[in-house]
């Protein structure tokens, strides 16, 4: 492990993965909140023709040219989707599908043309379908770092506007914000994030690196700022862990490993996130059910006490069981533990009896009052 980490290639890959995580995590959060998850899928597939064109024009694998091409064709695809949705009766998903399928087809046409031109070129290109982190060069890091810096500073500059437009576009419109402009900016930046990730995870799976960290972060966070930072954290962790695994095992493409790690984070978050996760929901449901049963038992003892005009009336456990069945014992021990009941005996009977403590009486009366008010 130490030997792997010290290799220069691995250091480059890890730095690249971390930079990519910063960009895609931050912008993915906005894409997810604005319901644009699948636009990310279309844009990333549509980056392919731009990549190949950049490759053809630069005459080789030049990251700057390739990324420029990808950003242009991806951005164009995003605009095409928006235009088709606005100008026709087609549903948004049909517009997404048309642009995705057709752009990818054009990309493959160009790719087969490029491969016909020079066989050697194809190896560098097909890496862009699935990503090949190991092919990352030192010089590529400067470009990715520049992209990250640009994306994050733009986001910081328009933070308030982006927040408002994402959560309440109508209000944003009403107070005079340029909603269309901010939306277009955020969409173009999603294209930028996708472009940054092409090297690492490839066009086909890039959507997952955009959506999964954001979806995971959404489960834990209560505010936009927290969500964006968490999302960046998940994305960086997915990228770094995925790159390490794929560097350790020969023949595994980086993209799929990164995506599976990110999916793992989502699954974990959806299960375990406090207050929202499925496990949490189940525990809360059980707690509510238990409290309800305890309150019902408490109410029964209180009613018996009143019927006998004796606030300390000892209710017999067997009688309570007749009323509350199997739930009785658990409820009794719960109430005792909370100091609302105490166990007592009622000579000459030998069976356990239960009477309200002052605290239990207060709680029972409060419940009764609450039920009446409701």
């Amino acid at each position, binding site marked *: 492990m130490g030997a792997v980490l010290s290799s220069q290639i691995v250091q480059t890959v890890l730095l690249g993965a971390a930079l990519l995580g910063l960009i895609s995590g931050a912008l993915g959060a906005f894409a997810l909140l604005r319901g644009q998850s699948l636009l990310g899928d279309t844009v990333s597939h549509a980056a392919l023709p731009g990549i190949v064109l950049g490759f053809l024009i630069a005459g080789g694998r030049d990251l700057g040219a390739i990324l420029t091409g990808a950003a242009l064709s991806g951005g164009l695809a995003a605009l095409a989707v928006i235009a088709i949705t606005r100008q026709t*009766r087609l549903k948004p998903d049909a517009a997404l*599908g048309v642009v995705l399928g057709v752009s990818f087809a054009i990309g493959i046409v160009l790719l087969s043309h490029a491969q016909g031109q020079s066989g050697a070129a194809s190896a560098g290109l097909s890496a862009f379908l699935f990503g090949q982190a190991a092919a990352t060069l030192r010089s590529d890091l400067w470009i990715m770092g520049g992209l990250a810096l640009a994306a994050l500073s733009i986001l910081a500059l328009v933070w308030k506007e982006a927040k408002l437009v994402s959560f309440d576009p109508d209000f944003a419109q009403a107070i005079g914000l340029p909603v269309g402009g901010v939306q277009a900016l955020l969409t173009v930046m999603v294209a930028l994030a996708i472009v940054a990730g092409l090297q690492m995870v490839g066009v086909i*799976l890039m959507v997952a690196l955009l959506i999964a960290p954001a979806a995971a972060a959404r489960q834990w966070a209560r505010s936009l700022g927290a969500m964006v930072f968490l999302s960046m954290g998940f994305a960086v962790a997915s990228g770094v862990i995925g790159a390490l695994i794929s560097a350790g095992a020969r023949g595994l*493409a980086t993209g799929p490993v990164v995506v599976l790690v990110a999916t793992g984070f989502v699954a974990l978050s959806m299960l375990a996130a406090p207050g929202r996760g499925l496990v949490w929901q189940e525990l809360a449901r059980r707690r509510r059910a238990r409290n309800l049963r305890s309150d019902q038992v408490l109410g029964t003892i209180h009613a018996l006490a009143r019927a006998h005009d004796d606030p300390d009336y000892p209710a017999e456990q067997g009688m309570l069981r007749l009323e509350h069945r199997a739930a009785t014992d658990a409820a009794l021990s719960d109430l005792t533990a909370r100091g609302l009941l105490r166990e007592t005996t009622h000579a000459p009977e030998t069976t356990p009896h239960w009477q309200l403590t002052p605290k239990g009486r207060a709680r029972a009366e409060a419940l009764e009052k609450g039920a009446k008010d409701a």
Partner: protein
Amino acid sequence: MLEAFFTSIPAMILTTGLLVGLSGALLGCFLILRGAAMLTDAISHAIVLGIITVWMLTGHLHGPVQLAGAVVTGLITVALTQLVHRTRLVQMDAAIGLVFPAMFALGVLLINLNARNLHLDVDAVLLGEIAFVWIDTMPVLGQPVPVATLALAVVFAINLTFVSLFWKELKLASFDPALATALGFAPGLIFYALLALTSVTAVASFEAVGAILFIAFVITPPATAFLLTRRLAPMVLIAAALSALSCVTGYALAQHWDVNIGAMMAAMTGVFFTLALVLSPQDGLITRRLRAGQNQRRIDSLTLILHLAAHEGSAHAATENSRAALVSHLGWPEKRARAALRRALDDGLIRRSLDAGADQPSLHLTEAGRARAQSQMRFFSADAK
């Protein structure tokens, strides 16, 4: 004759492309009407996991086992997506975007891991190679038929039967699922059957055009047809015709430019979509532009006579009822004001007179113009009540 057809490589490639296009278009029409186009995207990606899993379990890369596996994969994809969505922790589009990339990623890794034993590389699964379908043939009635083409022919027959048998149910389920349920049809069941057939078609097609190009064949011709007609039967026929046309022209261009045939066919569906988007007589961008211009001119004409009627006989009539006022008060560009005036003059709604001492002609309503203005104002006031 028959033998010449089956031994001709171009004929086999074209037939295969046509079968992919027609099978996809038949299903695609209902998928886009239902708003489920992106589920095709999800299924066609996820199918990669199905193909490799079935191969690992049975050793078959083709044949009925794979088609059966496709049904299972497709339904699992959709069911998983709905499961994730139903937790209400993420939205539907995010659920799609989480499930299929994970399945696809797993599929690609399994292919990577089995690369040594498997005559299938990732590029082939994604892109297919329609140019080589003729290599792997089996005899049918004494003719060597490519295996992939045969599978597609069977799938096309199944799709055609399904669509013609359940035409009414599909139509109802696509346009009004609530009514379909009320009438006792099962729109959910029909929808799942449609998605299962989409998966089967995707698997049958992957060898020819690959998992992702398949999306273009399923969605684009129906979306194009949707722009050209508002009726279901013509939509299906137009979609099928466009698929066929894309295959033929795509094949010719691919030969000409020496590029990937399947991709060129898929790209041609995009060319026809763009043409329809611009030129469609109903919804095309040009028609829309013309219609918007017409509306604008009609409204300008009306605004003009209402403006004249409002100021007719008032103290400011001389300044208000002039071309300069249209420009300065209504904020119309000079050109727009002139066009509106010319139109109203031609329609006999206004007339011009040059009063003594005035530097520009003043505008007056004719009888016809006044009547039009009054009827319009009655219309507005009736509307206000």
